[in-house]
């Protein structure tokens, strides 16, 4: 009976603790909803060019995702399958952009891809620039979101039993077909979640962006400039727009991967 009582007490404590942290984490979102007025939203967002930041963010975010998918997926697979020499070194490279403060990444990027650097010179040859351009915005977003995607995708690939890939191979599939028929479908729920988290990070990227890509102005920078120019209330509608753009993809990925997993359970 004593054990039973202890368990019940622990259960209540866990529920209370979970509720507190849940409320605390959701608090900002609830506050946002509480402080928005319909009038402020319509007047802010109906101004000419008011929705430009949304378009900029959506465009750059899509390009960032494409870069991550194209370059991050093979790296994540190689890390998960242990095919790279000195794997710790590669992982350290991925972690570097996660552990460095975004503002510091921005500073270092300015020194790396700025107009008077070697990379900047190369880009200039191609009539490109990585300062205050869409390219700069995408680069900054890639640095801020890549580790979330690569680490998530690595975990997704690591979760696929390599013996299933061997079995597919013995059943006659070439490596590319094994990837298409076994590896990717099995890793898909995890890959989708990783991509969704990376999207949310890319949408919200600010620290590195503010230094190398002040223009073109995406949503986070618009929030910042509105705040600086006219105060909190005029920044809130943009905050709402940012949430509305950043969150649907993660939510969709979450529901889809949960359904994929439950389908597998039969």
């Amino acid at each position, binding site marked *: 009976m004593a054990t039973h009582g202890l368990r019940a007490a622990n259960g209540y404590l866990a529920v209370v603790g979970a509720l507190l942290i849940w409320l605390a984490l959701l608090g900002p979102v609830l506050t946002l909803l509480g402080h928005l007025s319909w009038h402020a939203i319509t007047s802010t967002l109906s101004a000419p060019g008011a929705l430009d930041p949304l378009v900029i963010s959506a465009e750059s975010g899509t390009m960032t995702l494409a870069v991550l998918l194209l370059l991050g997926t093979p790296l994540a697979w190689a890390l998960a399958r242990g095919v790279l020499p000195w794997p710790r070194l590669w992982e350290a490279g991925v972690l570097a952009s996660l552990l460095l403060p975004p503002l510091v990444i921005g500073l270092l990027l300015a020194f790396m891809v700025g107009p008077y650097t070697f990379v900047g010179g190369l880009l200039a040859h191609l009539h490109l620039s990585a300062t205050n351009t869409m390219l700069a915005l995408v680069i900054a977003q890639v640095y801020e979101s890549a580790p979330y995607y690569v680490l998530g995708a690595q975990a997704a690939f690591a979760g696929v*039993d390599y*013996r*299933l890939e*061997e*079995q*597919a*191979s*013995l*059943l*006659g*599939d*070439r490596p590319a077909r094994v990837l298409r*028929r*076994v590896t990717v*479908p*099995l890793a898909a729920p995890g890959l989708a979640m990783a991509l969704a988290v990376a999207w949310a990070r890319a949408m919200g990227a600010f620290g590195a962006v503010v230094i190398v890509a002040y223009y073109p102005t995406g949503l986070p920078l618009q929030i910042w400039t509105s705040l600086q120019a006219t105060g909190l209330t005029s920044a809130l509608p943009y905050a709402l727009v940012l949430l509305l753009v950043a969150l649907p993809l993660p939510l969709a990925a979450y529901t889809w991967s949960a359904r*994929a997993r439950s*389908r*597998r*359970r*039969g």
Partner: protein
Amino acid sequence: MLEADVEVDRRDFPVRARLAVAAGERLALFGPSGAGKTTLLEAIAGLIAPRRARITLGDRVLSSTERPATAVPPWQRRIGLLRQDPGLFPHLSVRGNLRYAGAPPEAEVRQIAVALGIDGLLDAMPARLSGGQAHRVALGRLLLARCDALLLDEPYTGLDASLRTTLTELVIGLVAQRGVPAILVAHELDQAQAFADRLAVLDRGAVLQEGAPGEVVLRPASQRVAELVGYGAFLPADVPGATTGVHPDRVLLGRHPDLGMVLAGVVTACTPSGARWQVRLATVGGQVTGRLAEPATAGQRLVITAIAPPVFGADGRAVSAEPLGDGAVA
């Protein structure tokens, strides 16, 4: 005919073996855990790269490190591998798994499913299957993939005995029907014997003995083989430097000098073992264990006969399989 002459480097010891299995024949590779059995199968399947190899299946050369060097990739070998984990694709239904290789016609899928007793499960997802059902699906998938050889890596370890028997009989029937060579890896002797026409004993990467499943137990070629197939006691033999092996299942109660070596001693322990009693006996030559039909009590004096015990010379090799007469009598 599957012929494999393989040498694989491992961290602990190299695995070197030469095997030949005829079409429709079943070979069991028996040996302790870590002896290199799975390594051999994986080299034959093309999953690991051997240091030196010549593997042929029918008239196809699958691996050759001699010139011209050949290494047919696993997806072109047409070799089926069953492991302890059935390895069903969890995102595909039973039908999807069965049709994985080459998309066989529905009628053929249904025919195999009926033969394996899984026709009612075609739309189920693998997560819903029991262990036995999952193994049947895995077997069906291999059959529909039309493999030219079958490799079984302790597939039914961990299943209950009756299910294991059913599945083993199913595989034996199918190997005969399809006329493909089959190799089973087992670390339990009875499983190896239940499956095989021929048994090879593997230890530390080397084949120590090959023969009929019964013969290897009755006439082990060396003391090490005897240890591996269950001989529990090695007593000094009449010849100086030689030892006699006593298998607990090859022991009779009473004095039968015409059948083997008579041993007398004092019972030190008696525990039930299946439907028999495992009796430990202290003899002049050392401790002997025998599984007897009747229980004994500790302290009791007992005379037993070890039936035709093998004798090993000082070098560990068998010198004679059937020494007769009184041995170390207390």
